[in-house]
């Protein structure tokens, strides 16, 4: 089969994407496919028209790859592709939209308020910060609405730290999210087709789970996570509900928090184009389920073609 592996691009997550893409290419070659790695640029559409691949493997993270842009183009060109459709990608990529969809579906997610740079400049939204702080309490989390890899994510411990954190978050997107802090276990549930894979529990060494979470060398994880059977079942069910509510297809990674005090589960976000690097959770989960990386890649291709 002729497979185009879309990767790289201009986004801030270019490096992560190139790592995912390279690993996928290697696996596809081992599987005997005709592989074409494409570093996404101005020529993308022309390249795809010339190449006529049987299927496109989307290993493109960040803007363009995760927000549905590339998926939309692939739809127009009639090229089957891995992962979710444009609408679903868009919903997952924008954390504010995702939260609304999840809430509407009755899925628990930490309370949050969004603020845009124009609301701050034009509408005096800064005057609402006190009310937001009162509602969410401290510490709280500030992050850009649309940006992966925890870039621009800060923990705000007291009101005076909020402006700096908002400036940081708004460096990445014009809207930022202020989110209630939940002191909980970080769980990551990968969904592949109709099944959930073994749950990853992340153990940040740092006091602050949010900042430690994404720093290589600062975090360890356990897979499968050591959870009691009812919690495990509840986490899997919640992940599947979130996956369905956002309309995901093929695969996705659902990040959950398990409240240390109450054992309540919250959906933090859903990643429609999860990383496939050596350190990414989804391939680790697959391996724990006895699915090798090559088998995972093959399965993702099958899922892509099955829908078309």
């Amino acid at each position: 089969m002729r497979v185009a592996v879309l990767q790289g691009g201009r986004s801030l997550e270019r490096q992560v994407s190139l790592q995912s893409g390279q690993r996928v290419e290697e696996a596809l070659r081992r599987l005997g496919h005709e592989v074409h790695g494409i570093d996404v640029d101005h020529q993308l559409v022309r390249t795809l028209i010339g190449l006529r691949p049987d299927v496109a493997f989307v290993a493109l993270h960040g803007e363009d790859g995760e927000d549905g842009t590339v998926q939309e183009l692939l739809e127009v060109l009639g090229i089957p592709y891995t992962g979710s459709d444009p609408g679903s990608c868009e919903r997952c990529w924008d954390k504010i939209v995702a939260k609304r969809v999840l809430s509407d579906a009755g899925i628990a997610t930490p309370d949050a308020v969004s603020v845009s740079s124009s609301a701050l400049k034009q509408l005096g939204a800064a005057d609402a910060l006190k009310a937001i702080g009162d509602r969410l309490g401290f510490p709280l989390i500030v992050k850009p609405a649309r940006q992966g890899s925890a870039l621009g994510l800060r923990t705000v411990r007291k009101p005076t730290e909020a402006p700096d954190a908002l400036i940081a978050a708004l460096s990445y997107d014009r809207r930022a999210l202020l989110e209630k802090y939940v002191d909980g276990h970080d769980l990551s549930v990968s969904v592949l087709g109709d099944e959930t894979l073994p749950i990853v529990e992340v153990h940040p060494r740092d006091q602050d789970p949010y900042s430690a979470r994404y720093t290589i060398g600062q975090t360890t994880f356990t897979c499968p996570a050591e959870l009691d059977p009812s919690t495990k079942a509840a986490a899997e069910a919640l992940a599947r509900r979130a996956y369905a509510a956002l309309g995901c297809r093929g695969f996705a990674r659902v990040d959950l928090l398990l409240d240390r005090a109450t054992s309540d589960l919250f959906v933090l976000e859903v990643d429609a184009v999860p990383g496939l690097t050596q350190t990414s959770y989804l391939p680790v989960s697959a391996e724990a389920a006895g699915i090798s990386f090559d088998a995972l890649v093959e399965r993702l291709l099958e899922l892509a073609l099955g829908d078309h």
Partner: protein
Amino acid sequence: MTVEDPDSTAPGARTPAPQSAAAARSGSTARPHGDLERYTALFAQRTQVMKSSAMRDLMALTERPDVISLAGGLADTTLFPAEDLAKVLSHMAAGDAARALQYAPTEGMAEIRPCLAAVMAAEGTAVDPDDILVTTGGQQVIDLMCKTLVDPGDVILAEGPTYPGAVPTFSAYQADVVQVEMDEDGMRIDILETTLEQLEREGRTPKFIYTIPTFQNPGGVTMSLERRKRLVEIANEREILVLEDNPYGLLRYEGESLPTLFSLDEGRFVVYGGTLSKILSPGIRVGWTVAPAPVRQKMIIGKQGSDLNSSSMSQLFVAYYFQERDWRDYVQRQSDVYQARRDVMLTALQEHMPEGTTWTRPKGGLFVWVTFPEWVDTTDLLARALQHDVAFVPGRAAYLDGRGGNSMRINFSGVSEDDIRTGIARISSVVAEQMELYASLTGTSRPRSGGTGSTEPQSDPGTADAPVVPLRTAGRRRSNG
């Protein structure tokens, strides 16, 4: 350039690396994590500090062709006449092909040493060519110095900010780096002395003091003669080594040149590190060191283990080049170009940067160090700047202790004058936009942008206790500010 993020709390890569301990702790329930698990179990302890980081991933984006990158630290090799390179290389090939293709002594080839001694002499530093150890770039001097002197946990003193490229080297040797503030006269020697006393009380002796006294990278400042003398005295009194890294000394655009630390000390406690990267070519990877004999001996053994010898071809090329061409003339030509670019950059900063921004005014070298109000985070700012196709080095890259978050390093040597103007204008507009946002968040009044109101330089030298004393501040306070 490699940039490591020394801030362990900074947001890092997309997903964390599991440690083998994770599997061990979770006991029988743990399953192998595939490729990763297979290799990480074999990694040395010191790789723990060799981190991936958001900053490093962002830095990779600065190489996009549509980005004006002020993040580099490059000599402009387009200034070197291609026909000169062709001729010199062909003469070398005709005259010395076998030796160019052969191994060379670890210490360096006999022909190149007088050339390197001549470079030092041009700065008034006399040295016996036989004392020169040729290295693979100036970077290897830093590496060999650490390899020779540093055990895990040993203290190295360095300027704050320091050369970002030294940060991964210091980290790899698990050094405990203590950074000493600078002002417009370079490293604050009074703070250095207090720090040394403090370390002595704690029973810790620093192995060496790493300094770039002339046109410091990234600070852009130069150590005064008085401080040079005092630093050499301290080294002799306390019997600790100083590594004088001097890549830019000959790239002086104004003022009188100052004696090197090495010449003041006469080679007792100062180890000299030189390189041709900034005055001839970084591609040939030719640097050198002059060190006290016992240190030099150990460095030679260390170098044997690293690479046996530096490229014979590069060394012979240098020897032929120095024989056939006027190397000083080429340095002068580069200096003229870089000086013009520096002036364009300083003018553009003055024109565009919003109030509250300060920067150094280098008399030579390649870099300007810019400092923003404390709330600015230049790693986040870089993400925003990249959306506007412009890049710089976030200040945190120049510290191992998480400082520098509101500063950036910008380079003028490797960028055209037009690109410098456009690049500075773009960065300034991003900063101005953030300042406006900050003003609306905090209810403080700030100017919307620097505008073109004032291009007249201010003489205000800034406050004495700032990490790097600003030599110029942006746009004067306007009455409506």
